[in-house]
């Protein structure tokens, strides 16, 4: 069940500790406390027994570096996909650890998680505007957001109708609705996800004074629902008042 107050406690603690971005497992925990699905996962520390850590996780798995000094994990080689065997996972961890050591970065551990079912990559984000407060954004992932800047914004809190109109505003919305024989995603999947982030009881709305910026990128959406595969949450600097 969503638990906004637990999420608030996490964000407040991060602010008290200097306002640094939440690490990926913590950011995802905040999302899941607001009702967004995140992959089943385990945090593995260097030296942990991988085979034991795997536990009930179903392959294929994604391995991700957890390191406060790396801004873009995939650019750094901190993401490895499609892993199944403990041996392969151990080898990938060793390689990432070596790269961290060479760069002089602090290695905190690894995130091992189930890969999302196939679907469309979507970005949901937010930021705190100094005049209007929290603003939510949605866009299609990959080139649609990065090259074409095909995104829609709304001021929080949004209503279900606002969320649907955000989708209507996207040039690429036909892709989500099954154009070119692609996966058809019911609007309700994204509307629910947008409301979980920016609705009346959403993450951004409830913690309006605590969150400076948010990226959920990608959110993988399919007929089966939406899964937040990566998340970045930057708290407002400590002591800052809106």
């Amino acid at each position: 069940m969503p638990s906004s107050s637990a999420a608030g406690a996490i964000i407040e603690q991060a602010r008290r500790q200097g306002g640094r971005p939440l690490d990926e497992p913590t950011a995802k925990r905040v999302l899941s406390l607001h009702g967004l699905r995140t992959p089943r996962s385990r945090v593995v520390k260097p030296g942990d027994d991988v085979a034991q850590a795997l536990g009930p996780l179903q392959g294929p798995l994604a391995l991700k570096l957890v390191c406060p000094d790396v801004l873009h994990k995939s650019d750094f080689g901190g993401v490895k996909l499609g892993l199944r065997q403990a041996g392969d996972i151990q080898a990938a961890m060793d390689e990432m650890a070596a790269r961290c050591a060479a760069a002089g970065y602090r290695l905190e551990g690894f995130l091992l998680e189930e890969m999302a079912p196939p679907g469309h990559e979507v970005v949901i984000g937010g930021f705190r505007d100094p005049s209007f407060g929290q603003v939510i954004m949605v866009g299609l992932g990959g080139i649609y957001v990065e090259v074409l800047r095909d995104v829609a914004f709304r001021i929080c809190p949004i209503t279900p109708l606002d969320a649907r109109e955000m989708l209507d505003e996207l040039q690429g919305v036909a892709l989500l609705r099954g154009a070119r024989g692609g996966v058809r995603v019911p609007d309700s999947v994204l509307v629910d996800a947008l409301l979980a982030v920016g609705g009346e009881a959403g993450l951004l709305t409830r913690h309006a004074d605590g969150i400076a910026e948010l990226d959920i990128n990608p959110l993988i959406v399919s007929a089966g629902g939406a899964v937040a595969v990566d998340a970045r949450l930057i708290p407002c600097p400590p002591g800052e008042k809106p």
Partner: protein
Amino acid sequence: MNTHPHRGPAPDDFGALFRPATIAVAGVSARTAGQGNKFIQRLRAAGYRGKIYPIHPTESQLEGLPAYPSLAATPEPVDYAFIAIPAEAVPPLLASANGRVRYAQVMSSGFGEGGRGGGLRDALLQAARQGGMRLLGPNCMGIYSPAGRVTFTDGQLGEAGTVGVLSQSGGLSIDIVRSGEYRGLRFSGVVSLGNCLDVDPGDLLQHYLDDPGTRVIGAYVEEIRDGRRFFELLRHAQARKPVVLLKGGRTRQGQRAAASHTGSLASNDQVWRALAAQTGSILADTMDDFIDALVALEQESAHAAAFDGRVVLFGNGGGASVLAADALGRLDLDVPELQAGTIAALEQLGIPPGAGIENPLDVPANILQRDHGALARRILDTVVAAERPGVVVVHLNLPVIMGYRQGELMDELVRTAIGLKADLPAGVRLYLVLRSTGQADLEARRQAYANLAMQSGIPVFLGLPAVARALAALRRYSRFRVSRAAPQAMAGAAAASLS
């Protein structure tokens, strides 16, 4: 999150500002023509009927009126104080008002604009609180209120009306009054807000939303400190009155430190477009579009029926009609083909060859002149009755039409439009476009015809692209209201439009 639209205690009643019974004026000179002198002369020219109290530390008589040494020394309390004295003298003047002034408008600048005078800014706000008044400005033109006979413009005061405007630019507030009145807008008020140290855009927005005398609202804004309140007011209002926004600085790059993807994609423009989408406000790109949208929307809150986007175009000029249909089509408006029954009815009218019996209705001037414009009226009546379009645009090209019978044909066609307006069924709107080519003699005639039509309540536009953009604004407004209407209200509106 604060979702309550009010800040502080009860919202102010701005009535005393728009219809002041007593006005104090600081900045009146015995020797030179100061801003205060000019203001008093304007009040007199406008026929202001209340009391005027010049404020001066030493003079006892100014502009033929007894002068008083302070705001606390006037015979009666002051509804509105106009202050145009050097910046450093303003705080002590306000601080000594002793609760006897309701609104002080500070025209003077030097309170932190351009990064200078920040200390005086704080002193000014402090003084206004100490004096017990609301502060307008500083660095603003003040109030234009035809009903209250108070003005910041020279020349004749316009008629009072139902358009309420707030502006964060003094210069543009004058432009809005002048070009708005030229286009037939009649104002319930135009307020220049300046630096918004106290009274801010949200305060005026709330006033206009609540004011029964205001039916459409315009705002020129640059920076709104409390954007959240502005947004909440608009959202709460659900576009029950049309609101047209002209936002300066939308393309400016924000100083937002973007550590995220989302932050790097965000811009001021994006946030304002979001606000417009969520509140049904119209976001204009230019001053012309702003005025055009106000002209198009002035009567809209009284219209029960939503505009469904269907437009019938009628006028002379084949190419112009085609381009107009393109302009409308690009903006998501519909110039639908006429139904078979409508065409059959038009064929009964004996329209000579040369006129198209399709939408757009291209009717050359030599056919328009049949029966002194009566054929034009029959065509329009037939199409309106059969099609019930949301909008009829009648466009007349003056340089051509004025060549017929020394301009008599033009007189007849404008009368035809006025007659049509009077007989339109509910839910059909008439917009008139008077096209011309810039020659001075034609411009004078055009303005005379525009005035005639505007006096009959017909919105008049000066070009077809302009009317297309204004109708797009009307369409957005109407669509928002339909989408946000409660189901039972929608059913009621549907029933009303069928009856």
